[in-house]
C-alpha cells in the first residue's frame, strides 16, 4: 500500500460516513434506539436510587455513548443490503476495512454528538463540574469507537432484514448494561460479578467517566482507554469474517 492509496482509502471511509450521517441520522430507528433510549433508561433506572448529581452525569454519559454508538451498525448495513445500495460500496475500489471504518465512524460521530447533548444537560441541570475534561473527551471518543464496532458485528450478520439483528443486539446491550457497573458500582459488586464485569467494555467506559467526572475509579484510567481502543479494534475482526461469509452465501 502506498501513501496515495492510503489517502484515497481514508477519503473513501470519510465519504461513506458523511453519506450515512446525511441519510440515516434522522431515521426513526436511529432516533429511537440511539437518542431516546439512553435518556429513557437513565431516568427510569435512576429515580430509584439515592445518587449524587455527579454520579448521575457519569452514568448518563456512559449510557449515552454505549447506546448511541451501537445503534447505527445493526440498522444501516442490513437496510443497505436490502435495498441494494450496499453492493455499490462493496464493489467500489476500496478495502473492506475502509468500508467498515467508514461505518464505524458513523456510530462514533453519532455517539460523540449525542454525548455532547447529554453533557450539556448534565452541566445545566445538575450543575456538575468536570474534573478531567481531556480524559472525558478521550473516554467518550474511544468508548464510542468500541461500541460502534461492537454494533457493527451485528450489522455484519449476513441478513437483509434489520429486524433480524435488532433483537440480539438490543438483548446484548441490555445484558451488558446490567453487568458493567453502570447501575451497581463496581466496588459494590460481589467478586464473581466483578470478574464478569471485567469482560465487558462498558465497564471500562463507566470507569473512565467516573475518573473524569468524579475523580475516582477502580481501574487505572489509562488501562480503561487502552481496553476501549483494543476491544474496538478486535470487534472489527468478526465483522470482516461475516462479510466474507455473506459474500459466499450471496446475501
Amino acid at each position: 500500500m502506498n501513501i496515495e492509496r492510503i489517502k484515497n482509502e481514508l477519503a473513501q471511509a470519510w465519504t461513506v460516513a458523511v453519506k450515512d450521517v446525511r441519510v440515516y441520522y434522522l431515521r426513526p430507528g436511529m432516533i429511537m434506539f440511539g437518542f431516546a433510549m439512553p435518556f429513557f433508561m437513565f431516568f427510569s433506572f435512576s429515580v430509584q436510587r439515592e445518587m449524587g448529581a455527579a454520579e448521575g452525569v457519569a452514568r448518563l454519559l456512559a449510557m449515552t455513548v454505549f447506546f448511541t454508538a451501537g445503534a447505527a451498525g445493526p440498522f444501516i448495513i442490513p437496510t443497505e443490503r436490502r435495498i441494494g445500495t450496499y453492493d455499490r460500496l462493496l464493489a467500489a475500489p476500496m478495502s473492506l476495512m475502509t468500508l467498515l471504518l467508514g461505518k464505524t465512524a458513523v456510530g462514533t460521530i453519532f455517539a460523540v454528538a449525542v454525548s455532547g447533548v447529554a453533557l450539556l444537560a448534565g452541566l445545566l441541570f445538575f450543575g456538575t463540574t468536570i474534573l478531567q475534561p481531556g480524559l472525558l473527551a478521550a473516554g467518550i471518543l474511544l468508548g464510542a469507537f468500541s461500541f460502534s464496532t461492537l454494533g457493527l458485528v451485528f450489522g455484519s450478520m449476513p441478513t437483509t432484514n434489520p429486524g433480524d439483528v435488532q433483537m440480539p443486539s438490543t438483548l446484548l446491550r441490555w445484558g451488558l448494561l446490567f453487568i458493567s457497573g453502570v447501575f451497581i458500582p463496581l466496588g459494590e459488586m460481589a467478586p464473581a460479578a466483578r470478574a464478569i464485569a471485567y469482560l465487558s467494555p462498558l465497564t471500562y467506559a463507566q470507569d473512565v467517566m467516573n475518573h473524569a467526572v468524579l475523580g475516582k475509579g477502580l481501574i487505572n484510567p489509562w488501562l480503561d482507554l487502552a481496553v476501549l481502543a483494543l476491544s474496538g479494534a478486535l470487534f472489527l475482526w468478526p465483522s470482516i469474517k461475516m462479510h466474507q461469509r455473506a459474500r459466499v452465501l450471496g446475501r
Partner: protein
Amino acid sequence: MNNAIEVENLTKYYDKFLAVDHVNFTVKQGEIFGFLGPNGAGKTTTQRMLTTLLTPTEGRILINGHDLARDSYPAKQQIGLVPEESNVYTELTAWDNLMFTASIYRVPRGERAKRAQELLETFGLWEKRAIKAENFSKGMRRRLSIAMAIIHKPSLLFLDEPTPGLDTQSIRAIWKLIRSMNAEGTTVFVTTHQIEEANQLCDRVAIISHGKIAAIDTPERLKANFRRAQSVEVAFEGEMAEKSPGLESMPGVTTQVKVGDKLRLYTDDPSALLPRIVQYAESHALRIVSLNTLGPSLEDVFLEITGGQVGIVTNEIQENNPRRKGMGGRK
C-alpha cells in the same frame, strides 16, 4: 491486448444448489457481450462473481488481466456496475448521489461537477438534479443508477437486465447510451432474458440455461439455430385439435403440439405454411378462429441448441417470450 474478461471453470454452489456450472468464456475488449437466459439461469450469479460481490466456489476470473482472487483492487477501479435493482440513495438528490459515487471512485475533485452535469444532461435529469431520488419514477431511477455507474469512466461496464419494466423511450435511451459508450471504447457485459435485446445490442451472445452455457456466438449465427423453433398456431371453430388429421404431415411441419384449444405447428418457414393451413381449412370445411405465427421462444431456442425436444414450453416462457405477429381472428 488483454481480454476484458476471461472466465475459466467458473462455478457457484449456493449451499448444495448448483447455480453456475463450470462456465468458460472470454469477452474481448471493445465488445458488447450479451448473457442471455431465462429467469433463474444463473445470469445475476455470474455477474456478481465477475464484479467481486460473490465468491466463486470454483474457477478463475481475469478482469483486464487481473486475477480477481489475487487482487481485486485494479479490477474494481475499471468496472462500472448497474445491478438488477436500481440502487440509488432515495434520501439523496440526483446530484448528491452522483457526487457521492464520484468521491467513492476517486474521480478527481475538479472534474466531478462537470461529469455529473454531462451525465444528468445526457439522461434527461438535469432539471431534476435537486430532487430527492425517492420522488423519481422507475425509469428515472434506472437512468440515475446507470449515470452513477459510469461517472468514473469505467473501461468495463456491467448491466444486469437493464430494461425490463421500463417504457419504450427509456429502453431506447439506454440502448443508445450503451452503443455510444461502446463506440468510445467501453467493453459492455449485459445480461438479459430478452432475445430481441441481445439481438439489437450485442456483438456476441452467450446463452445460459440451468447454470450452463449452451452456445456462444454472434446473434446472426445463433438465429440460424432459432429458425427451426418458429411456429404457426391455429385454432379451428368447434373442432378439437386432435380431430384435424393430416396437419402434422403437411410439408414444412417438423412437430405438432397441442396448446390449450390451439395447435402449434413448428416449421422453419412459417410464411410458406400459412397458405397451406388456409387451404387445409377450406378443403376440410373448418372455420379458422385464429392464426398466428410465433417467433422462437427462448425456451425453444435452448431446447433446440441443447438438443432437447422442441415444443415443450413452460407457461412462464409462453406468456412472456414468443413475439406474436398476429394475423388475428380470421373468419
